[in-house]
């Protein structure tokens, strides 16, 4: 398995992706969501692409039509979804109190 150290910054980005695992996220969009500067964000994205948790693709648009160059987006790979959930659960477990209750990082309460 590719090794990655789950720092708080990595966890923050993974959590952002897990909020909607199928969503395509752009760099600037992630910068705003995480408040990370570009210098912090892109090395982490590159790492996550390198280990296969994220997929990086060029958007399918016509630059002349939209009036700007094609951007690149990132999304979780299927392996990345599993791995990110696992690693966040591990982190949450390490941080959680012994009391039974929702996880710290992924409070998933169903609504009806």
């Amino acid at each position, binding site marked *: *398995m*590719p090794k990655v150290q789950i720092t708080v910054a990595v966890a923050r980005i993974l959590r952002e992706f897990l909020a909607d695992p199928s969503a395509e996220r*752009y*760099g*600037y969009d992630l*910068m705003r969501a995480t408040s990370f*500067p*570009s*210098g*912090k*964000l*892109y*090395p982490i994205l*590159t*790492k996550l*692409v*390198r*280990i*296969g*948790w*994220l*997929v*990086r*693709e*060029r958007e399918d648009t016509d630059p002349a039509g939209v009036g*700007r*160059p*094609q*951007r*690149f987006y990132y999304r979780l*790979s*299927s*392996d*990345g*979804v*599993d*791995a990110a*959930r*696992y690693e966040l*659960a*591990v982190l*949450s*477990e390490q941080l959680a109190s012994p009391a*039974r*209750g*929702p*996880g710290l990082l*992924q*409070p*998933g*309460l*169903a*609504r*009806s």
Partner: protein
Amino acid sequence: MSGLLAIVALLGLFFGSVIWAAVSDMFKDEVRTRLTRLPHLLIRAASVWIPRAAARDDLADEWNAELDFIVYGTEGLPLTRLLRGLIFSADLLLHGAPGVAREIAASGGPSTEATGLASARIAGRTWSGLFPEGRDIFYEGEDPTGFVSQIRTEFGFSPALDSGWGVKIHTDDFCFTSYSFRCPTEHLDAIYGNDRFPMGS
């Protein structure tokens, strides 16, 4: 004689102001152009950090496209957006590109596309290994009754028997029902560790 001097002075003033206006416009254009190019120059400088040509061009494309979006596509006045773009590219130059270069060097190849990347499968690590005594998990789907029935049929236990199942929770804004249950460790990977069921924790 003094009348002639006055006319010359007026003409001089007129042409001087015209020339000054033209030079001033050219100067503003010059400054504007150079300022808007500056973030792109910083990105070009940042991409020099990237060790491989293919990855370098690819990343420069990405960063330039993001920069264009920041400078022309985000909210705010022109100077605000330009400043935002400058911060974006300067931080890439100082921190981002060296970090990305280290990652690419660590990978032994440019990490440009997903194809061919190593699998992130969690070899040898399982949810049951992480939670040997089981784990409290939440059903987050729209059909709790159907879920209970399916779990009972496939796995031989009923989430509905758990005290956390069907708990009404009232907040200031809304009420909802929480469906929590203790999943036995031997079923964690099948129920929780994949995308088959809409689960949370």
